[in-house]
């Protein structure tokens, strides 16, 4: 279970998160939307322990953030976390198989059969020997998702996973991400601008004025605007 309690974060005079609280059950997924600069990525960075909150606490299953030491943070990320980036960030010197296996090998739980199944399910098994620069954007993102899941983390954070992809590929990648997380009972939080991707989550959220709102549309949008957008 993910539990955020009274989270606060400021950059200089600008307060990004104001007493933000939120709970998500294990195995569920949440999507976070919001205007640019609203603090979506900051929230993700706080959950991953990349940045420290100014106030409040984060509980992920039996782990409490912020961590006591850097080593503890590293160990948490290694064992419990999977991250999917907008720009894929594959290790360009390793082939697809090694890129995916990397996280599992780091954790020490590399299961080749599981990796093979994962790759088959994500339709990237035939790309094992390819290097990242030989793949299309959609393929690279599918590899990145496989890498985020292969070590069986309890939480996957995805930051704009479809931001660099076309509509059709976005649909495929998002389906894969949500389907795999559900199948593995992994908690997923996706930051996105895409209405279609956000709709796939169990809990669609809006980040507005430093607070999370459970709703389909932006709190600032009028019903008419939303209708217009959807048209």
């Amino acid at each position, binding site marked *: 279970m993910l539990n955020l309690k009274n989270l606060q974060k400021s950059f200089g005079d600008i307060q990004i998160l104001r007493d933000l609280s939120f709970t998500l059950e294990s195995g569920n997924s949440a999507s976070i939307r919001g205007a640019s600069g609203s603090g979506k990525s900051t929230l993700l960075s706080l959950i991953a322990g990349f940045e420290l909150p100014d106030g409040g606490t984060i509980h992920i299953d039996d782990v409490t953030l912020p961590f006591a030491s850097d080593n503890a943070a590293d160990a948490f990320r290694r064992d419990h*976390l999977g991250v999917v980036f907008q*720009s894929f*960030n594959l290790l360009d010197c390793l082939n697809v198989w090694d890129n995916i296996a990397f996280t599992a090998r*780091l954790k020490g739980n*590399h299961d080749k059969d599981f990796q093979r199944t994962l790759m088959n399910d994500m339709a990237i098994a035939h790309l094992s020997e390819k290097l990242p620069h030989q793949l299309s954007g959609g393929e690279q993102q599918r590899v990145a998702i496989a890498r985020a899941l292969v070590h069986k983390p309890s939480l996957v954070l995805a930051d704009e996973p479809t931001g660099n992809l076309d509509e059709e590929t976005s649909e495929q990648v998002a389906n894969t991400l949500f389907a795999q997380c559900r199948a593995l009972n992994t908690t997923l939080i996706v930051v996105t601008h895409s209405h279609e991707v956000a709709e796939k989550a169990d809990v669609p959220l809006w980040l507005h004025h430093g607070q999370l709102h459970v709703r389909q549309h932006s709190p600032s949008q009028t019903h008419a605007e939303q209708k217009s957008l959807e048209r």
Partner: protein
Amino acid sequence: MLNRLLLVCRVLLAMARKRFWEPLLIIVAIVIATAGLSSVTLINQGASEGELASSQPGWFAGGSVSAKSTDTPISKADYIALRTAGFTYLVAITETEAQISCPANESRSLPITITGVDIMAALSNAGAFGGMSGMLNRQTANKPIANPADATLASNPNASTQRTTLRAAVSEQTARYLNCNTSLTGFGNLLFNTPQVITGLPDERLVLPIDAFYTEGRTPENYPLTALIVARTLSNKEQAQLQQALPGHLELTIPPTFTSKGTLADSFQLNLWAMGALMAVVSIFIILNALMLMYRARLPAFIRLRQAGVGSRMLLSALFTELTFYCLIASPVGVFAGAALTLSLTPVLQATFSGLFESAFVAPSPVLTQLIAGAFVVSLAALAMFFIAPAKQLAGALSRNRVQAATLPPFKRLLCSLVLLMLIALTLVFASSTATALLSVAAVLLCASALLILWLAPLLGVVRRLVPPTRPLASYVVASAQMLSGKSRLAVCAFFIALSANIGMNLMTDSFRQATLDWLEQRLTAPAYLYSMQPVNETSLPDSLRLLPVYQGVTSVSDAGISDAAGMSDAAGMSDAAGMNNSKVTLRTYPSPYPNQINLPLEQETPSTPADFYTGEAVYVNQQLAFRLGVKPGDHLETGPIFTLGLEQQLLGGKQSFRVAGIYPDYGNPEMQIIVSESLIGMPEARRNVAAIYPALATSSSLAAQELSSLQELSSLQEKLPDDANLISSASLIAVSMETFDRTFVVTDALNIATLLVAGLAFAVSVTLLTMDLKPQLAMLRTLGISQRSIKTALTAQYMLLCAATAAIAVPFGILLAWIFIEYVNRFAFYWVYPLSLNWIVLLKSVAVSLAVVLVVLLLPLGRLNSKIDLRQEERL
């Protein structure tokens, strides 16, 4: 058009400001290259001027007229008659021996030859007496005057009368021997101010005007003229005319005219240019590497500029303008740095030249505008040559896909490697001169660099396969190093060239040092040696000691003077001898108390030689002679008449013929030399200022060493010797020689380390810049739970792995370079070779030092690296 160019240039300079490390690296590399270029130019200028100054013909080079018998010497009337008859090139000299002393150093009384010269006649003839013009000026200014103040300084208690003060002249070597900074006394009542040092004067003489000589009761009658020097080289016709005009009691001696030049200046300059070329190659690689990095980082901007309608030619012009701008900034700085470096090194170079080469080094006077213009043109031209192809490719790119590098399939890689190796072999097969040998060195470096580019990635691939998959970080380190080897290949090449050259030079120096040490230990067979300006009388030594003087002479060998055992002339086979007509060869004796035993470290020897050697039939020749004239053991060598070293006297007239018994190494000697038996030139005139001292009863060299090894015995012997005699043990001589050797190579070592440091720096900067590009990946690694320290360790490890792999390839090529330096460059430039000794400690030290240099240079940027985790690390276009 111009506006557009300026606009693009402004964009480029804005980019340069943003990533200032890359242009800074380019500027630093150009500074280093131009500094090296200016240093080499100035050092060569100093060496050439020094060589010119010290290569003035000796006084007796043109010949001399002397009396056939001491009973009928040359009279003043003879001299006047000959000059009146038109032989105005004759210059009279008169000589006498004297004991002079230095009042500042009362215990020293030194024997020396006082030489009076007809200054006016000498100055009317240029050439041999050219350096004496200053003496005349000083003489006029310092006309003999009474100097009672100086007289009081004199140690002579009988100097009650006023003394005449004179300025005499001496050679550089004699000035060192006199070692007196005050006036000299001991020649009647004449008082000599600190002698003026004039290059080209004969040694062991104090030279003064003849009218000053003939004072205080000395007249041409009681001190007759000793010789009439021929002040210039005479034609055969002129020689015959002079012969005819000479009175019956006088004779003309004409020494051989040597047509061959000394090899020192050429060899030294060649060596320096080779070193300069090495630095230039490394600099070019560094600059190109920096250019590539810079252009790679700017590629997205180039593409955008092209997409915005900037033509490829316009972009290329702007890039070249930017490069010209960097050259304009860097060239003057480099020239100033090079000039300052050379001037600060001048005292060291002067000491090295006089100590090791017995030559002079004149402090260079740099013409900065000329040097800056030259450096600018050379650096810009070199850069333009290498810049065009890659810049054109980049400037033409409209999308990123067009500039992706292609990988070579294994078969083609193997084929390319074979072609490169064959190219190296071919240059070695056809190396027949210093220039072609240096071309081989260049070919080795360039082909090896190409091989490195071809094989470094596969080599790292093999290492990668050896890393177990359970070590993902180690696996990533090797894979990343493999990928970096392609991206930083020019920096890797610069490092590789510097390291290979460093290994080659270190191995060569170490081999040379070992060979020199062995040679000295074998050559210095006497327990001690006695150095003195005047011959030491053997009676002044204890009975237990035996004095064996060294005799030296000079002769000429012509092309046709060599024949094989069958008597066939070998001139056709002498590749090195082409163009040599009458080469100067020095002769020396080999002082050994043990008949039929020669301890020379001979490389080749014909059977039953010692007996033939002692009878004067056989001789030993040094490698310099053997290589230059193509002489083999068993050949017959015909020489001209033999003269004393200064050509004053003829020791043996007519042609001499010898059988070559063996060839000995003679490291450091720029001249051709023959070791002959004492029975041939063992005359007082040929006796030199060095003699070997052996125990009289010694029966073997080891026993001799035991008998004289006691330092006490040597110091007690020194007390019994004359003031000017200096006794030096063999051990001290070896120690001093090796000290000089090591001192000489300090400059080379410093240059090597500097080159390595520069290459290491370039390598470090390039990998640091690449690391900046890797930042998104590093951030990603941090998200995967890898600690900051692990990432820094991994980065250091991958760069060190890249260096270690480069070093692994550099070692065999470094050894090959050392072999080429010794067997080809040294042979053709200096005419001697020595065995290559593969000292593993030297090899390991070279590699360890280079890796340490890179590690130290890397620590700073990597220490400051902070791979902050940022979810939005965006890859640049």
